[in-house]
């Protein structure tokens, strides 16, 4: 029937909804090349302890990044995640130290605190009519204030190793890979399929494309917006627990600057800051790239400040490539 129809568009076009898109493929190639070069040029890179360290240090960025991807896909942004992580860390660290809270309730506590902070952001964005960056700049300060009050002017010392199973030590590993990283992988897989196959997950994309049209299409814009920020809050809670890890010390400056690293990972992963496009797979790869560069610079004995320079350059290259591709697409 279709072939018989004198249709307007008879040219064949390749479907675009593939699992791995251009940017992700490029990132995989870049990562593979980097790992190959580093394995050859240093003795220490391809050791289990180094890789384990790398993956553990990247895990919090990846975990928050998974939520941030959803937020950015809706056309928003959340710069309060670093302060939020600090609140979670101080609350949970004190709870497990002072009340001896065991793993499960402590985990629930961390998630609950993160969720509340995320919901506050979401409600202000959805109902306040305020631009997300302004809302979360505001809550960045407010959450940092809250965290500092809870710290009571001293760092939290002697934190027990309740969360060592998610920590950076040997006890936090399965098959030589940190459990925190396994967690990030599982969460990414769940979110990836949610954002791809679940109706409410697809609605985030619609929302980021055109919020007004989304409302007309019967999408509950406000609740989807809140859901994205709430989810990010939940992941901030989880990341806070991973950062506490094997315990010891939680410092007052915990989480500062985390938001920019997370956003960098998301953007390098190919998610468009303008909303409507992106995937958590890219974010995972973006986080990995940031982590690899950090690790490489240490191992090569270069100046650690170069890390930041490279992150900046990577952001520009990733977004620049994306811009060129978009422009080409539009020019067809």
């Amino acid at each position, binding site marked *: 029937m279709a072939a018989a129809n004198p249709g307007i568009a008879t040219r064949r076009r390749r479907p675009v909804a593939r699992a791995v898109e251009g940017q992700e493929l490029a990132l995989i190639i870049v990562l593979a090349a980097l790992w190959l070069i580093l394995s050859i040029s240093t003795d220490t890179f391809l050791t289990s302890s180094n890789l384990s360290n790398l993956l553990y240090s990247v895990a919090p960025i990846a975990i928050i990044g998974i939520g941030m991807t959803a937020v950015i896909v809706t056309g928003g942004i959340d710069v309060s995640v670093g302060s939020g992580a600090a609140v979670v860390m101080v609350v949970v660290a004190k709870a497990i130290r002072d009340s001896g809270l065991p793993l499960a309730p402590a985990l629930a506590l961390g998630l609950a605190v993160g969720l509340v902070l995320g919901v506050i952001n979401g409600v202000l964005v959805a109902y306040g009519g305020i631009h997300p960056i302004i809302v979360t700049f505001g*809550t960045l300060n407010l959450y940092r204030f809250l965290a500092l009050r809870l710290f009571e002017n001293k760092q939290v010392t002697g934190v027990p190793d309740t969360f060592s199973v998610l920590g950076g030590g040997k006890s936090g590993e399965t098959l030589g890979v940190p459990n925190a990283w396994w967690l990030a992988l599982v969460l990414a897989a769940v979110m990836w399929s949610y954002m791809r196959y679940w109706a409410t997950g697809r609605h985030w994309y619609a929302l980021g494309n055109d*919020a007004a049209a989304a409302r007309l299409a019967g999408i509950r814009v406000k609740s989807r917006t809140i859901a994205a920020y709430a989810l990010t809050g939940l992941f901030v809670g989880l990341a806070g627990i991973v950062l506490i890890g094997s315990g010891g010390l939680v410092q007052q400056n915990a989480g500062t600057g985390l938001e920019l690293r997370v956003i960098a990972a998301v953007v390098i992963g190919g998610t468009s800051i303008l909303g409507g496009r992106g995937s958590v797979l890219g974010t995972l790869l973006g986080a990995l790239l940031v982590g690899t560069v950090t690790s490489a610079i240490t191992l090569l004995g270069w100046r650690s400040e170069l890390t930041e*320079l490279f992150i900046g350059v990577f952001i520009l290259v990733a977004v620049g490539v994306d811009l060129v591709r978009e422009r080409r697409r539009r020019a067809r």
Partner: protein
Amino acid sequence: MTTDTTTAPPEPGPGLADRGRQSPIRRAIDLVLSERVPLLAVLLVLVVGWFFLLSNQGYLVAPYDSDYLFSALDSLVPLCLLAFAELVVIVSGRGGIDLSVGSIVSLCGMAFGFMVGLWNWPVLAALVVTVAVGAALGAINGLLVAYLGFPALIATLATFYAFGALALLSHNNAPISTKPIQDVHSLTRTVSLPLGDQVPDVPLQVLTFLLPVAVVVWLVVNRTAYGRKLYAIGTNDIAARFANIPVRRSRFLAYVASGALSGLAAVVIVAQFASARPDSGSVGNGMALPAITIAVLGGVAIVGGVGRVAGVILAGLLVVWLNAGILLAFEGSDGSQFQLFALGALLVLSALLNAYSLRRGRGAG
């Protein structure tokens, strides 16, 4: 953008004519709620009055008097310079924002440190070159945003990292605090005005940096053809193109101006610390955040095309004098913590108010 779900009617909202029928008190409240400058003026009087009262009752650890208020203006200077930078880029529209101002401050501060502290250049020449360096760094942002089409948030996030790293690398992560740099501290001394003994001493930098810059920025945005272009592209850059306004060049120049203002702020900060520190612009949460906060508090609309110099100055004064009061109201580091709270709460509340007055069909400035 995720919140704009209403399909606004094309017809004009309740017109100006409706205003005339309201009582004068209702109109005054309306004015304060919908116009940013009177609101800030009222808030400023309330805050300062409140702390004067607390001070007289002896609740504060030190007197909150006019001398104290004037000396607090020290911190107003760099803050306001950077808020002006944000004013210009945010007004230029299309998601305009500059996250890199803190890193430009660090890098320009180091440049100034090299010129004055290590190469013994005259301060004035070094100052001019530092501002030029800032403008050049801003031009990189402008190139990325205006000509290459990068979203401003992303471009300036990237340069925030890159410039910050260069600042740290420039002098092996060490500050420059040689004798000539320490001498620059004299730029921040206080001077007494020939207005009698009642008037307290004023920080010199207010007279040499803040006031002239405020006047220049005010003149540029309000009185020059460039200012018109800036507001035009920020309001509607497609219409600007049809009106034969050079959209890209005008936006580019906004980022250049932001860089130049950050360069000037760098000199002030080096003078205040008597040392060129490679992380001066990125300590804590960085300097971009407070600067953006003050701009938004001052009524600069994040969507572009709206914002006034007077609003930014009043917002700066409000934050600085509020912070000064908070410092006296709390012991130890509690004060600095409550400053964070005040900044965050003010930002969210003022943004809520902006949204409210926009919904009522009138601009925020």
